[in-house]
């Protein structure tokens, strides 16, 4: 069984870790003429000052990141009733501190394609969300067997089930067992079926969200190819319940 381990949530250089190869795809870069607005330029120039000269900008940045971390934790506190106000405030400060390091470490990569505040917020939101998920799963065992296997195996029919979707689910269940590697099966089942947060799973396996999602992506692709080779129409069956 996987064990709990407390580690830093996010690396400065690659917040979500290496993805072991791109899943896709060309991304349109923003228009190069746009550039950052005046307020964003002021943020960057202030933070670029070393020593006491940049102290005020860094203090303002910490304040901004702490506000974002508290926003995230307040949004999610209803799902985590066991966490008290003091716990949440501790998490907010930890998240703001780690986000501060990430933002300052990646300042050179800010391209001005959004407001600086929006760019910085995402680091604090990520840190707060990851810390909250990991705290919520601290000490809990990761369920690696499908909790909904009865449904997948076809014995959990519900009134809204269609014959098409039940047949496809049965084929998917078989393919999960026979087509995927043990690692792919373990990861896909835990994350996609059992609702284990990907960041929690990544921590237990000493890997990253990006690398783990690549495993999920490859497993899904393998399943879709296998099912298509068997002549199953995935699009029709997946849409069947909505008809």
């Amino acid at each position, binding site marked *: 069984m996987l064990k709990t381990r407390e580690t830093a949530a996010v690396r400065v250089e*690659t*917040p*979500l*870790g*290496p*993805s072991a190869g*791109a*899943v*896709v*795809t*060309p*991304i*349109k870069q*923003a228009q190069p003429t746009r550039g950052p607005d005046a307020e964003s330029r002021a943020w960057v120039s202030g933070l670029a000052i070393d020593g006491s000269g940049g102290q005020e900008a860094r203090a303002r940045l910490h304040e901004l990141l702490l506000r974002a971390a508290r*926003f*995230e934790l307040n*949004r999610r506190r209803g799902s985590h009733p066991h966490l008290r106000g003091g716990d949440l405030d501790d998490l907010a400060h930890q998240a703001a501190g780690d986000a501060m390091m990430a933002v300052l470490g990646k300042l050179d990569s800010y391209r001005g*394609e*959004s*407001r600086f*505040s*929006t760019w910085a*917020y*995402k680091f604090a*939101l990520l840190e707060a*969300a990851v810390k909250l998920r990991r705290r919520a799963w601290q000490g809990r065992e990761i369920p690696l067997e499908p909790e*909904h296997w009865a*449904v*997948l195996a076809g014995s*959990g029919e519900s009134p*809204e*089930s*269609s014959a098409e*979707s*039940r047949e*496809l689910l049965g084929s*998917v269940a078989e393919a*999960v067992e026979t087509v995927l590697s043990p690692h792919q099966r373990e990861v*896909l089942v835990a*994350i*996609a*079926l059992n609702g284990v*947060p*990907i*960041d929690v799973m990544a921590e237990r396996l000493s890997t990253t*969200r*990006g690398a783990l*999602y*690549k495993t*999920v*992506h490859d497993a*899904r*692709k393998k*399943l*879709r190819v296998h*099912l298509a080779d068997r002549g199953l129409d*995935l*699009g029709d069956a*997946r849409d069947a*319940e909505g008809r």
Partner: protein
Amino acid sequence: MSDKPSDRSLLNALLGPEGPELTCDQCFAELDRYVELELSGADADAEVPGMRAHLQGCGACDEDHRSLRALVEAEST
């Protein structure tokens, strides 16, 4: 009311989104631009292809997206 997930949600969770999608790192790198495009009324999905599919496939990145959008919206009101 049943806690049992629907066939459709199970199939979507297991088989993931159709078509190409961004990686988690690419998603994070583009998230701020994507959110501002969305909130400005621009066609964010055309500007950042693969983002929508990734958000459908990755629950954690989807939560990050919802949070950033909510925060930027709240800050602008």
